[in-house]
């Protein structure tokens, strides 16, 4: 990991118009609400949050699959937001996506060889012989038998399909791979295989990952830094170890405690904090801190004022009026 910024997002906002219940009324649902984040070359940045928190929308905004409502995204110093399709083209092959559902994201009527070859063909990678050779090479890279190229997606298991999805994303030698819940549809044992594969590929191909998931265990395992998202905002961003050892935001604390523990002596015992209720509708975001209706520590300040994401210590960002380790645990620290 270096300190070179590969992708920088500044105050990215994405909102959608949704129709309201009454005739003609329209509401604005803000899926991503002012996210600023740097992705450093060679790192894995994990983004974690519940479904509906806007993490997938953020990912699509960062790679310009969705136009941002406001804010800017820079890639290697070039501002991408506002560029035309044609101008974006040279950047497309640098940023590739791996999707959640390996069953739905592969066209069932095409051979997996064709699926992997598509990005190569579209970007005129070379002659068809060169493309064939590259596809076979990619199959080997992701641990699939290259003789499978003529088969169809339904002939593969979930884990193998996700390997195909990864192979497709690697064809054009991207520098950034955005993986949107790549393992959440897989069994635990298969999930481990895919995660290991992704780690190997990162070392081998010097990839940068933006890794999106709702499972903090998975995110923690793969990420160098982790950002926690809630209702379209980053509420905490820190190095993975630090975030785990000492969560500052009450939401992070709750997320950590929700991960099922094996209780086989290898883990810190955490007191289970069960959050009540669901994530609020992004069209009706609460005043003040978005998390306050579900937060055990909420005060009047939290109900009226939305805390900004501040660098509270070097490389530690948190958006909370009363960061945990700094306030509630003071007694523990001094004891």
């Amino acid at each position, binding site marked *: 990991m270096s300190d070179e910024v590969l992708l920088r997002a500044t105050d990215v906002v994405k909102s959608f118009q949704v129709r309201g219940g009454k005739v003609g009324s329209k509401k604005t649902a803000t899926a991503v609400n002012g996210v600023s984040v740097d992705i450093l070359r060679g790192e894995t940045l994990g983004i974690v949050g519940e479904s509906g928190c806007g993490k997938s929308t953020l990912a699509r905004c960062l790679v310009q699959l969705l136009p941002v409502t406001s804010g800017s995204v820079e890639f290697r110093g070039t501002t991408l937001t506002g560029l035309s399709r044609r101008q974006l083209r040279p950047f497309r092959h640098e940023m590739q996506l791996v999707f959640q559902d390996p069953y739905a994201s592969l066209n069932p009527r095409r051979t997996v060889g064709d699926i992997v070859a598509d990005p190569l063909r579209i970007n005129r990678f070379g002659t068809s012989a060169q493309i064939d050779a590259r596809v076979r090479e990619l199959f080997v890279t992701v641990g699939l038998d290259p003789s499978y190229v003529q088969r169809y997606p339904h002939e593969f298991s979930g884990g193998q399909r996700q390997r195909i999805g990864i192979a497709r994303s690697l064809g054009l030698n991207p520098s950034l791979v955005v993986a949107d819940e790549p393992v959440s549809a897989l*069994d635990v*044992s298969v999930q*481990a295989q895919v995660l*290991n594969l992704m780690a190997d590929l990162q070392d081998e191909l010097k990839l940068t990952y933006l890794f999106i998931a*709702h499972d903090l265990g998975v995110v923690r395992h793969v990420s160098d830094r982790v950002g926690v998202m809630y209702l379209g905002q980053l509420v905490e961003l820190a190095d993975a170890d630090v975030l*785990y050892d000492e969560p500052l935001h009450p939401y992070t604390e709750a997320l950590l405690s929700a991960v099922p523990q094996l209780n086989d002596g*290898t883990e810190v015992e955490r007191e*289970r904090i069960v*959050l009540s*209720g669901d994530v609020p509708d992004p069209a009706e975001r609460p005043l003040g801190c978005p998390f306050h209706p579900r937060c055990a520590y909420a005060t009047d300040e939290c109900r009226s004022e939305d805390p900004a994401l501040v660098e509270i210590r070097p490389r530690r960002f948190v958006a909370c009026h009363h960061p945990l380790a700094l306030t509630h645990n003071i007694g523990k620290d001094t004891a």
Partner: protein
Amino acid sequence: MRDLSVSFATRQGVVRAVDGLSLDVAAREVVGIVGESGSGKSVAMYSMLGLVRDANATISGSVVFEGREILGLPDKEMQPLRGGQIGMIFQDPMTALTPVFSVGWQIVEQIRQHTDMTKGQAKARAIELLAEVGIPDARRRVDSFPHEFSGGMRQRVVIAMALSCNPRLLIADEPTTALDVTTQAQILELMGRLRDTHGSSIVIITHDMGVIAEMADRVTVMYAGRPVESGPEVDVVRAPRHPYTWGLLGAVPRLGERSERLATIPGNVMSPLEVPEGCAFAPRCEYAMAQCAQRPALTGTGHQHACWLGEEQRVAIRSDGKGAP
């Protein structure tokens, strides 16, 4: 449940989806069945309740529920059990409810199927149940339709429905797989609480050892339709004996430590047509030996396992750091 076997005749041959599964569930006990998809854990439960409606399926063995053999009962005699004494919770709350009826209607329907309550009484009970499973404003929400609930809330509705007739046994098929971690924690907590208040026994089916560790008193690990290890949860999680269980445990990403690589089980769950005569796990097992060509029986008392590895070999492998979770 004794020696339950389910096989399907397919064009490619006979698929033994469940092969000799035995299971005891005591009153108020939570028993976990764990295994990868395709290991036959759901099929076992469905066939027990006569929910496998495939003309090509052959089911054998014996299931005794409260002293009565229920396997192979005709539909008519099975119906009072299903939803009455045995409730079920399913994996995907998004599709488990009929989209065109209100959740209250669906709960009332089940209550009235099994009791003599009037519509009014049943509706009052439905509201009570919805409130009990933690649906806010249950009195109003009882008339809402499934699509108006979030995934977690829908799973609560399904649980309320499963509990509506005070079942003695609750079967939960991957009840939290489709949910967020935070919602999963809510649902697991709810199920634990309801076990205490309703006194039902629970069979929970999952592929996630973490869920087992949270919930279960005892656990059976299944591979390719066969039980490979079974015992009290603490023993199986802390001192697993079967190499497959080692793999399952090792694959869970830990919050506590960040290892470079997760332990994996090489290969995929094999096609059920290719299950070997001997130990089903042998083709993927690091420690397979000649003896594995014969099928190991489930041995031991209390903590049982089906593996040819001797105690000393196991200890040696484990102390090597290999196979350790």
